[in-house]
């Protein structure tokens, strides 16, 4: 029971370090994979929508604090991502959802929602081009995050 609550936070710390130190080296322009959303989605698929929403909120808050960013922005985006991932939760299909190509698809959907929410929040009222917002600021980061999931997925399926 306690592991369920603390494991994501323990995993979050090394992921946050990688996100802030290594990921900038592999980012293409401003497009970079989001490792935090992967944790949120994975644990949401294991434990359900309410858990995922709360986890997204908590990890988003921690990430805002640790990255020196605007507090509330990642919180907002990751809460939405956790909530969205909750729609894919099925306690009879946990293995199928987390250890197959379905996981990749879910990550893509949630990463796009996360990036979109993050960008909309920052650019509301600035008259930004919607196509640019959708494609460059949402879909491309989503695609990159999805690509990063493949090796993790292979690692997880081999482990079993």
């Amino acid at each position: 029971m306690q592991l369920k609550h603390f494991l994501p936070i323990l995993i979050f710390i090394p992921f946050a370090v990688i996100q802030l130190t290594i990921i900038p080296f592999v980012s293409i322009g401003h497009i970079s994979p989001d490792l935090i959303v992967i944790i949120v989605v994975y644990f949401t698929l294991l434990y359900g929508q309410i858990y995922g929403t709360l986890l997204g909120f908590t990890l988003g808050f921690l990430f805002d604090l640790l990255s020196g960013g605007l507090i509330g922005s990642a919180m907002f985006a990751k809460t939405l991502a956790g909530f969205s991932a909750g729609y894919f939760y099925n306690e009879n299909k946990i293995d199928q959802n987390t250890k197959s190509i379905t996981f990749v698809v879910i990550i893509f959907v949630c990463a796009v929602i996360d990036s979109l929410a993050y960008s909309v929040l920052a650019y509301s009222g600035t008259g930004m081009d919607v196509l640019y917002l959708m494609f460059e600021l949402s879909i491309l980061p989503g695609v990159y995050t999805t690509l990063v999931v493949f090796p993790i997925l292979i690692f997880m399926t081999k482990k079993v």
Partner: protein
Amino acid sequence: MQRIIRRFLLSIKEYILLVLLLIISLSFLSANDNQQVKNLKTFAFGNFAFINSVSSGLANIFSNTDQLIRLKKQNAELMLMVNKLREYGLENNELKNLLDYKKETAHPVIPAVIVSKLVSNVQGNFIINVGRADSVSLGMPVINELGLIGIITDASDNFSVVRTLRSSRLSLAVVDQRSNVSGILDWNGSSLILKNIPTTYDVKIGDRIITSEFSTIFPPSIPVGIVTDKETNISGLLNNVTVEPYVDINSLRNVFVMKVIQSKQIKNLELNLIK
């Protein structure tokens, strides 16, 4: 009746939770300037940045040399000096008499290394390995040998947060070095834009854009970028001028903090805005 209401609330509990958490997130967004929130943030990133600096140091073990940093520091100081001279040259004819009253200002710089970056097209910022213990204060400009990078927005004892030009929350007063046309430069998500410049104003592609004397957060004459495009709006009266920054913010590693803070008195006039 109570049972029906309770059942209804239970059936939508996920949505209630979501709305509640989103409202809390938005409240935090509007409370970012609150002193308690700032203290919490400073404490958190100050401690976590230590882990990042170790990790970042390992990642750059072969590229970081003292000589490189020293040369880059020298370059940054020379860049500021050259720009100052260029400015004097342009003003020489008109302001010969006034120049006598101008005070020479030397800006010492503090070398720093970026320990973590938040890669985002929305709120470009990064954390550097100098803080209050190195005499870094809020509001100090951050530069490299090419030009302006951003401004210090938070500082703990050993680390500081830099808000870069690529942040929708930083607007700065700039001027066209050739024609002295002033404007406010903003990041719109894809490029730096000088908005609503009258079409009659003399701004040409290739002009150098520098920080303005009107700026309350940056000292004047720091190079910012070069004009690359002009777009006239529908009315035909105003231009949106695109500025390409001199500094490639994505590939930065070493930066310098200028030990200068603009006057508080001027700051109160809020000519320049950090949103």
